[in-house]
């Protein structure tokens, strides 16, 4: 008996194909039951997320036969009538365990090191466990995978840093201000990214939100949604006297804030730092304002560059993580308990 994996992910297939093979959560127990009833697998876990669909199975069949049968099962279960080849990947031991540990640690994710997959894998395992579709081998393998993921999280920098524009903006604010609790956020233009960034700042303790928009209704609606207040677009610059973080994403074809407008405001602010995040294209804020003392201006490229640099740092950590995983897989395979015992826990 050995652990095998068959699946398709964002690395091998487009979303159009992944969605054809996705399992609805409520139907997974039935699929697992069918898989085991077919005699193909003694134990099984199905992981189905937006980025991957995978079946982890313990089978007595030879690897080649098992993969062919599992492929047939997948195709039949989803009534898929198209062609499928390299989009499906397969792993036999020890690579199957190596793959499981990588998935749990976020190393196989679209954004390397992300943690959401850890929770999704845990949910998938628990669903199979509750319905008694796992046994000694998969229980041991998944428990070990979760431990390895935690170990990697604490021992490496694989999850360090902001890999999205929103989280980079929050991190910047924390580098400038002692505590976000003392600062309100001004949202200029009620766009989706600025809204998400404001939400991220609020979740990190920002005191409140002030929204301004050409359409006052939209400003009021967003302000209500975020628990803040709206100010008229005609005099939003007055708000900058009190507010220290501004996120701008209007559709204006020209700069709505330039050095001439900001300079007198900075004098009124008595040198309090001001963080300006300009995520509009074309840009809302004249880059020359960054030359003013105590003004820190970041545009969308700057934030994306920070996110990309962090991602590169994470990639540099992958080798360390792979080494840890190789050691842990070897240790698991050598462990006496991970050999022959079958049955449900």
């Amino acid at each position, binding site marked *: 008996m050995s652990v095998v994996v068959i699946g398709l992910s964002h690395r091998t297939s487009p979303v159009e194909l992944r969605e054809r093979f996705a399992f609805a959560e409520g139907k997974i127990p039935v699929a697992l039951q069918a898989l085991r009833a077919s005699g193909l697998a003694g134990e099984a876990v199905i992981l189905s997320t937006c980025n991957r669909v995978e079946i982890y199975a313990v089978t007595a069949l030879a690897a080649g036969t098992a993969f062919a049968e599992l492929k047939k099962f997948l195709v039949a279960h989803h009534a898929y009538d198209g062609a499928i080849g390299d989009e499906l990947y397969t792993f036999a031991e020890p690579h199957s365990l190596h793959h499981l540990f990588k998935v749990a640690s976020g190393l196989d994710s679209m954004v390397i090191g992300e943690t959401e997959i850890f929770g999704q894998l845990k949910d998938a395992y628990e669903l199979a466990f509750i319905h008694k579709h796992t046994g000694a081998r998969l229980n041991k393998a998944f428990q070990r995978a979760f431990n390895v993921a935690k170990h990697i999280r604490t021992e490496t920098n694989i999850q360090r*840093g*902001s890999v999205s524009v929103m989280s*980079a903006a929050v*991190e*910047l604010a*924390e*580098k*400038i*201000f*002692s505590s976000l609790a003392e600062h309100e956020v001004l949202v200029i233009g009620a766009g989706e990214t600025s809204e998400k960034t404001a939400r991220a700042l609020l979740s990190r303790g920002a005191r409140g939100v002030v929204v301004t928009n050409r359409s006052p209704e939209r400003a009021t609606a967003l302000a209500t949604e975020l628990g803040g207040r709206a100010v008229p677009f005609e005099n939003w610059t007055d708000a900058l006297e009190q507010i220290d973080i501004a996120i701008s994403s209007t559709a204006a074809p020209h700069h709505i804030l330039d050095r001439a407008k900001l300079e007198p405001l900075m*004098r009124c602010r*008595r*040198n309090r*730092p001001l963080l300006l995040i300009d995520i509009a294209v074309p840009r809302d804020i004249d880059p020359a304002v*960054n030359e003013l*003392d*105590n003004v*820190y201006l*970041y545009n969308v490229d*700057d934030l994306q*560059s*920070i996110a990309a*640099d*962090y991602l590169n*740092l994470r990639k540099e950590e992958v080798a360390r993580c792979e080494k840890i995983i190789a050691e842990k897989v070897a240790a698991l395979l050598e462990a006496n308990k991970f050999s022959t015992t079958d049955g449900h826990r």
Partner: protein
Amino acid sequence: MNWFTDRHCFLLAVTFYGLATLYSVFLWRKGFRRDDWVNYLLLAGGVALHTLAMVKRGLTLHSCPVNNLYEATTFLLWALGLACLVYSLLPRFKFLAAFTAPVLFAVGVFALMPSLDPPHGPKPEFSGALRSLHAATILQAYGAFGLAAVAAAMFLMQHHDLKFHKLRAMLSMLPSIQRLELITLRLTIVGFGLLSIGLVAGGLLPRHEGKPYLSDPKVIWSALMWLVYLELIVARLFFGRSTRRFTIGVVIAFVFLLLTFGITNFYSGLHNQ
């Protein structure tokens, strides 16, 4: 243990400061990414030995050990090192040690020059509480100014990295620039208060025949330093001087203080007896 004098003890302290400086270089190169205790412990070891050296000298003299340039310099460094250890306990301030260690090491090596520590009798002339207060508060003020300069340097580095969108600003585990500015301002004000007390205490000391205070280079220099720091504080608090200019001023003032401290002491009739 007669062979192990206070100077030996200070030499060991400077060795620890040197090790901390080496480790600081490593931390600089790594961009202050790991928040560890190694540098803090090295500096703490140095300050402990430094304290022992000063206690030994103080016990020998039966007074505060600030009677020549060596003693004055070591007292200043001790105040700086101790303040650094205390402030480093604040969240994200452990890297203060990495910025302070090079100053302690460089000035410590300078203080070890034998000519700065000429032999004197078992008890120096003009010892007494007021004299100790005068010397100790002024040197503690310089320690506070030193630490303010260190915090200002940290601010300027972080400010530069944030202004020019360097990734190091995000990766480093330095405090926020708002916090660094606050610490710099507070330390400068504390230093200014101590300097004022020290200067007033100095003015109350017994007068020397034929040595008027206001013609002594050290007194003129001290008054100049007092004015410099007064200007920095007033300009920042009441005239809206920008944080960047204020912190540059704090760094320049302390570098000037360090460079001219020994020279004015050397030419001072009142302080070089």
